[in-house]
């Protein structure tokens, strides 16, 4: 009966798909390709209303196979994708976008650009929300490629300018590239998302043409609009922009303060700490200590010599001046139950001494002050250092012994 026939057909389709998947997951691309040729038959009776019909599967599987198959060429790939584009209307934009990516990754930027322009001019009935998003992405990538050609022409022009002659046509082309790029890039970065690449390019364009206000506004929007995800890069870009344009210390600090609040472990925290340490205001110096302590809480910073030396320097300053010992005490209070095991164990002392002497020096200083001269880490490192006749370790030992009462005040 026809029902049975349909069932059998469905079953054999599934079996075939399983074979394909199996072959692909074992990197047997040839075998997978053979099975795929059989699977194409399933298109004949594609009445499925499923989200992913056979045509989409063929596109996905075919693309994957062609990417890995040893005998495939770019020509074959292009012709396959062209066929796939005609196979499903709903998927046209997606296929175009993926095709562009393939071309871009293979260095065929002009072809990719053509492909994007073609896709952009495509119209079919009413667009769904997904298609709308895909269209925006297509435009944004075209804008990106426009930006790259703009920057190339800019480079040419700058070179020519150095040589002393002007090229009007190049300049005109450059400006038209700018316009095309700016329009498209501006559009996408209005929509909530992660647009690091596009924002950077757009800001670069604006900065070149001197539109600093617009650039600053774009960056502020990208960093502070609550509809956007909390992207640390947005704050980094803003900070870098402010720094480039010589903004005041205050605005730089406030930009980094926000970054500190969302990502205390960001690598810019060292810059932030140095900046704060130099400040004359007590509050800022206290914040600096807080920042460096917070950064060293994270496992990724455990062996960061720079950070440890920042902390060691500041702690040393405070101990010598004997002012603001309460800052250290405050920071230490929430850490004294786990920092010793996390940073200052005997095992780590051994390892740090073997692997990185200067790290162990900085850490030993901090350990000696925070935990006293009897702390395992300090004892081991200073002992080893003195044995190895390294001068700074002897000085370190003297310093810690001299300031041992500080430890009592901190821990008390």
């Amino acid at each position, binding site marked *: 009966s026809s029902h049975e026939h349909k069932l059998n057909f469905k079953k054999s389709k599934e079996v075939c798909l399983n074979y394909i998947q199996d072959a692909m997951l074992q990197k047997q691309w040839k075998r997978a390709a053979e099975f795929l040729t059989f699977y194409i038959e399933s298109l004949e009776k594609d009445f499925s209303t499923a989200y*992913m019909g056979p045509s989409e599967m063929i596109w996905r599987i075919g693309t994957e196979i062609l990417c890995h198959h040893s005998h495939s060429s770019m020509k074959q790939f292009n012709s396959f994708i062209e066929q796939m584009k005609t196979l499903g209307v709903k998927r046209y934009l997606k296929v175009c976008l993926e095709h562009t990516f393939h071309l871009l990754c293979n260095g065929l930027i002009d072809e990719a650009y053509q492909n994007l322009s073609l896709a952009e001019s495509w119209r079919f009935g009413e667009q769904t929300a997904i298609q709308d998003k895909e269209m925006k992405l297509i435009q944004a990538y075209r804008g990106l490629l426009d930006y790259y050609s703009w920057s190339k022409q800019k480079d040419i022009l700058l070179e020519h300018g150095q040589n002393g002659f002007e090229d009007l046509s190049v300049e005109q082309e450059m400006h038209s590239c700018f316009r095309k790029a700016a329009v498209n890039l501006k559009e996408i970065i209005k929509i909530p998302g992660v647009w690091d690449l596009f924002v950077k390019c757009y800001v670069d364009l604006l900065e070149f043409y001197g539109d600093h206000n617009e650039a600053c506004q774009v960056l502020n929007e990208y960093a502070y609009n609550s509809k956007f995800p909390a992207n640390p890069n947005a704050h980094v870009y803003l900070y870098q922009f402010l720094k480039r344009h010589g903004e005041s210390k205050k605005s730089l600090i406030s930009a980094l303060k926000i970054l500190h609040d969302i990502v205390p472990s960001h690598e810019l925290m060292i810059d932030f700490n140095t900046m704060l340490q130099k400040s004359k205001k007590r509050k800022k110096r206290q914040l600096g200590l807080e920042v460096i302590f917070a950064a060293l809480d994270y496992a990724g910073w455990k062996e960061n010599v720079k950070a440890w030396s920042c902390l060691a320097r500041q702690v040393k300053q405070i101990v010598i001046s004997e002012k603001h010992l309460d800052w250290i005490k405050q920071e230490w209070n929430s850490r004294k139950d786990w920092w010793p095991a996390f940073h200052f164990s005997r095992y780590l002392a051994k390892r740090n001494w073997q692997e990185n002497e200067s790290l162990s020096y900085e850490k030993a200083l901090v350990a000696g002050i925070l935990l006293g001269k009897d702390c395992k880490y300090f004892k081991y490192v200073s002992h080893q250092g003195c044995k190895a006749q390294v001068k700074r370790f002897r000085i370190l030992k003297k310093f810690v012994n001299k300031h041992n009462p500080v430890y009592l005040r901190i821990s008390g």
Partner: protein
Amino acid sequence: MEFPAVLFPSYFSVGPPREEGGPGPAAGWGEYGQVLEAGPRRRQAETTFVPRRGGTGESWEPADAAAVPFLPPNASCWIPSLVPQDILYRGVLRRKLQAGKTGAALDFTKQLSHFFVDHPEDAFGSLGRLLHKNFYLGNSKLRVSVHPGVTMLPPTLPLAAASPSLCLFSPQRQARDNTIRMTALMEEIGRLEARCGCPRQRLAPRLRWFSHLCRDWLFEVPLGLLADCVHEELLLQWASLLFDDSSTGGALAWLPPKDVGARMGRLVYPGGQAMNHLYFQDVVLEELPRARGSPAQFELNGHIRQVAAARADGEDFVGVRSDYHCGVWRVPGRTGAAPTPLQVIRTSVPASCLTVSPHLPGELSVCTQSGAVYLWSVERGLQRLRHDPQTMFFRDHSPWRWSDFTAHPRVLSCADRTGLQCLDARAPERCHFDLFKVGEEAGCQQGERVVLPMYLGRAHPSQHLVTTQFSVYVLDERLPLVPVLKWAHMMKAPPLFAHLTPGGPERSHKVLLGASHTQELLLLQYQGERWGFGSACQLVGPPQKLHSIAGCLQHLPVQLPHRHHMLQQRLGAPAAGLAAALQEDGLRESLLVFQLSEAGDVFCQRLTHEAAQPPAPTSGDEAMPAPGSSPLFETPASSPPALRSEEEEEEGEEEEEEEQTFYFPAAALRYRRWLKALSEGCGEPPRHAYPATLSQKRLFTRKELATPAGPSTLHEQLRRQLRQTMREGGCIQRWDPLASQPCTPPQPLELAGDADPLSARLTAAWSGDWGQWWEERTSFNMAQRQRALRERRRRQKRARGRRSLSASFTSSLTYQSELSELSDTAPTSLSPGPPAVVPREGSPPAGVPPASPLPDEALLSSQSLRCRGIPKERRKTLRDYLAVWADDPSEPPELPGSQASQLCIPSSQSQLSSASQPRRKRPRMGF
């Protein structure tokens, strides 16, 4: 660790997931996702792009064609786990339900009736005892007489099954007043049973009346309550069949060597009958990893669900989770040092998660199904961080919770099925942020749920892996909610186990995902931030499927069917854990992947890294034979199968020579040993796995067996017939009266006259006309009797010259068929089906006496015979029959078929010895 300078573009929106229907079957292929400029741009140079997915990864090729047993088989009689067929309804209702697409129908009634039949004492015990005097089940009219009223119920009625031994005589006057006749009801039930499965089945009014009357008081446990419990249990069983999350995380852990380059690591795994023994096994990494010495062993009082391990401060800490207990062990740094148990905690609600801190020694996190999350420190004890029976982001019924560590030693991630949150242990109420949400933020599908989160600290301190049933995500704590990587993994079952093998700078990190029921293993590679110019996370190389344990079955030599079936069951047991070890041997690198099955077997496979490969697109199938196609046991075409576990003992010296022909000798040797150990040890416990054979010694006296000196004519005849049938490819069905019989039936032994009714009856049964024999015995029709006599004489003439039953091989066939029918536990039988003899109308009511293990004098008393439901007219037959034993006490007693079968199959005996009797009872050749 720097944050990537530029992230891949992506949209961000909030709210519940919008995409419906789950990803398609090939959703993970053919997509680059997004592209990004690769590295800093140089002047004048063309920009190059890298994709989010699809870059070139490292090449890791499987070294063997299948996973190889790493340890001897777990010494336990593994009970195959529940399968859907056990609890699903099969029949009309299910078909109807399927048509309506309402999903699975649990066979609640069957389970409940199983309960009544299997545990009648629990179900009806006291009322059965109270009432048995008042129920009369005889055939005669219930009236005042001198005969005692006997309560006797066929075993299927639970009422009486509870008290079959209580056959008391009650004074009939009382009986008359208080006894009711239940025979009709019993017959009704019998009919109902016979029509079982009939779509037109209707409840008889009498039965309905009875059940209405009794429903409220008959049951020991109130029926509603009992039904609720059974139903609840069924639902639980079904849910755990669909998805069992108790083993999330996996119960296998690898403790890598202490020093880089050392070759000795440790494998921690559960074993034993109840998987309640914890083993720490030293392992030497070689071509095939080898266990060294005997493992350190700890006996725990619970099924080990999860083994988690992490190294902190140069020492390994191993956390072990069972349902109500969690323990932590410390494995000291020096090699050979014994692991020491540190602490155990008990939970009142099953724990669902145990993870070990990679930052601080002796810290763990524990979650229970009540929604509590604890930070457990060996020194400071337990600190509850959260207690919330509700899920975090939207309502989900699952009580499963998970928790893991993050880049900050005081911040823990907490997960339920709806997402992940990070809490600061110092102020858990105030300080927390959402790390992952099932929703539009991560582009999830509707119905998507978190299955396993894992902290990827060894690859990158702020990255986390989250797997759902559809996809894998990599998340960065510094950019919460937006996955830095997402890929549809296309696995058939949700990945419950994951393992990370971090790669160094400029290398990819390897993530292994494992599923439980399907045993799937998938290797993914991703590249985190590279040093210098921080680049975003990329998935590199195509995903790769590794060998599953069950996959080795096709490479094993051909096995006997029952053994094959057993192996299939054993090897196909759901996976219970996953671990991997990276072995660096000079320039050569290999990854050893260990897989644990629920039966407690540990298998291992090796992947070798081919670093020399040019960055050109990988060409897996051209360069080398497709993995899986190379036979594990390759032998010259003419030689017999190389691996004959059957003939292990005889092989002896040959073994050495034969091994040379193996494709992978070491692997083959491992298999050989494993199979041998399996069949020697525990592998064959289900007795019914053997073909149902019966020792003839128990059936016949030695004298009878000894009689035929040479091949008789019947032998010849039967051989001829057998050969002919074999040629034709048919089957011999001696008991089929309808089938044309090309040769005369095997002739019965005829002893002198009627002296031995038992033999006469048995021979009649064998020759296929037992019904007639019965008529002879019972009928008062003289004509018939005469005809029967004539017939017998004719047979006598024909059968001259043979004296033994054993001459007939069909007789043993019949015995086997009886046997298979008798014992529920022996479904495999040589006979193609039950005897096709149907008692004729008018033949006595069919009913088998419940066979007792050993006959004794009491058995022969009419009283006890009556108790056993044997009708009066048959009692004599049985007495005669049993009296045969008494004739020759020196000989081993010949038992009637049913009893003999019990002696041979003790499992069925134990079933019979309890109050219940064989569940299925069919009319068969009666006595």
